[in-house]
């Protein structure tokens, strides 16, 4: 017994090492740089400066606006698609799913370049609508990441739930709003987490569509390019806090949903 227990634990060692070197250690480095000044003294100066500067706060708000819009549009497009893919009655479901997920296999700069060409044909000059083009390209880029978790969640949803709802007098729309959406909230949440953070940071898309406004990712990039490890790390830490906060809130919401709604 003893030996077998030991052997089992030993199997975790590579993963533990991986975690330490590639997750915990980098996080500590980020926190260290974020909350120290250039000489290694602990300081909140970077943190306070971030919120004092109109430029950085503006970037944060601009990033949030983009991320919220991209996530919302992705969700609105992905949910019906995932629903039809998961619950529709037709053969070759997975082939259709593949069509939506296939772009994930293609290099993302190539995809954005292709989208740029399409937009250029439609708009004439990309420079006229940098904001809209950013949203379009990001939605196109992140859509599969929203569809996959929703599809999984909807596939797991037992058809008897839909039948029970119809049996009790709910029409198709009522069933979707009263049963399907509440029961797929975990999928919705993981879809949002998959899209929201990349949408706040992926400044390559902005560069490619000639959107010169900074988002959080561009800030980090520019600080690091200037060898300002402290400010760059601080912004990463702030993003981390955002995501942490978001996860805590949504987990709370899910627990509330699954624990039965109170009257």
């Amino acid at each position, binding site marked *: 017994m003893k030996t077998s227990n030991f052997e089992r634990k030993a199997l975790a060692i590579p993963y533990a090492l991986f975690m330490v070197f590639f997750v915990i250690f980098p996080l500590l480095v980020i926190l260290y740089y974020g909350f120290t000044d250039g000489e290694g003294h602990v300081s909140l100066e970077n943190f306070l400066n971030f919120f004092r500067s109109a430029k950085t706060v503006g970037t944060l708000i601009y990033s949030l606006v983009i991320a919220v819009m991209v996530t919302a549009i992705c969700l609105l497009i992905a949910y019906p698609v995932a629903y039809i893919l998961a619950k529709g009655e037709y053969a070759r479901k997975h082939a259709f799913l593949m069509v939506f997920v296939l772009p994930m296999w293609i290099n993302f700069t190539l995809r954005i370049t292709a989208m740029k060409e399409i937009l250029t044909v439609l708009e004439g000059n990309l420079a006229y609508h940098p904001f809209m083009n950013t949203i379009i390209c990001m939605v196109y880029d992140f859509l599969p990441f929203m569809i996959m978790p929703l599809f999984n969640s909807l596939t797991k949803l037992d058809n008897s739930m839909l*039948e029970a*709802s119809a049996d009790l*007098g709910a029409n198709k729309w009522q069933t979707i709003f009263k*049963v399907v959406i509440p*029961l797929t909230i975990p999928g919705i949440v993981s879809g949002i987490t998959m899209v929201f953070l990349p949408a706040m940071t992926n400044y390559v898309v902005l560069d490619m569509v000639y959107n010169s406004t900074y988002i959080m990712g561009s800030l980090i990039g520019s600080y690091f390019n200037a060898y300002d490890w402290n400010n760059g790390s601080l912004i990463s830490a702030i993003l981390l806090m955002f995501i942490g906060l978001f996860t805590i809130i949504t987990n709370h919401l899910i627990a509330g949903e699954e624990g039965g709604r109170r009257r």
Partner: protein
Amino acid sequence: MEKDTIIELKDVKKSYDGNTTVIENINLEIKRGEFVTLLGPSGCGKTTILRMIGGFDTPTSGQITLNGRDISPLPPYERPINTVFQKYALFPHLNVYDNIAFGLKMKKVSKAETEKKVKEALEIVDLAGFEKRDIQTLSGGQQQRIAIARAIVNEPQVLLLDEPLSALDYKMRKEMQLELKNMHKKLGITFIFVTHDQEEALTMSDKVVVMADGAIQQVGTPEDIYNEPANVFVADFIGESNIFNGTMAAFHQARFADALFECVDDFEKGTKIDAVIRPEDVEIVEKGKGQLTGTVTSADFKGTFYVTFVQCGDFEMEVHTTKHLSAGAEVGLFVEPDNIHIIPYDNTINHYVGELGAFDAEKGLFVRFADVEIYVDYKKVYPEAKVSDGKLVDKSGNEIVTEGVNVVVYFNPEDGDMSDNKDEGIVTGQIVSFYYIGDHYSYTIRSKSENDYVIDDDSLWNQDDIVSVIIPKDSIKIQFMK
């Protein structure tokens, strides 16, 4: 007063993708306020019928009427029918109250009214005070009750129950059976219950519909079904039974198991029959005093009686008796005439519509039927024909055109045989059912194209075995179609 019909199925058929038929032409009337059970082995189509009544499946053809109105095109939410699902299908995101109130909310019933009705429904299922509980905290039996409450709170005209007790343990199941029956009396609405458990069906129902292979085998009261099974399938499926092949020897007299029995059913002398005798209807008497004499091979105590097997020559009889007999004892067996149930033999067994092909001087006459294509001796079909110049001619020398002539081909189950070797027989299929008939087993083998072959065999094969059917050429009989 004769109760009026609430639900009627008229010529209902259901097939998937146009080829797999699950329901074959069903006609069924259900009276208002009845407790009807659809009973049958899994895959017999009983759940499909329930789902069509509930609106979750639509018939491929035929009509389902409710109070005389065709409801087959209506979606489930427009039918005054509610369902208790097999796995309850309670909504995990809602508590007990909201689950039960779901249907009422959809109908926009006022809040006060909803609260009152939910409370009543919870009282009916004996779970008063459970409003605020989460679904996950309930036991299987409690979830079952909530599922029933959620359905009956809508005051449906018909309540459908899809094997609702199958997930419960034995004791709980027995309790719920009684409770459901009481609930049915109290509510006075029509219950349509689906189960594969014959005991459950017999205990609970006013009317039992026995199904097999997508077709109704018998409809009747539990007593009718048990005492007067319409065919061998029902006799075998409901309760224990001894089944024997035989013939009518005279008026009110049947011959089977190498003995003569007085009986009460009227059939013409010479009719082929199946005789069904329930084990509890066989009396053990002194050797020589009954219709049969045999040796006890085993006796197992089952609480209130002994399951005793008696070997009478080639035939085996199962007897349920309170007397304890030890193996080896010589006894007589006696069966009262009205305890022998005679079923006329199904004359469609192993009868196929076929077609003749061209005559070949070397191989013989080509016949095609069911899955089979063979050459047979032409004398089977044209006893007076002759071969002349490689052609088949009649008495006056005119050539007989055989191609395209429709015939009926048949063979006796006892002439057929089965083999594991695929190449040995003329068709392969799966054993879909079998019965023990006194001294042998009767197997039904179904081929891929859904043709059934009935073969008698002494040895025991397994359900679902893939076997090859051997039909000796000599035993095939061919008649012209009338």
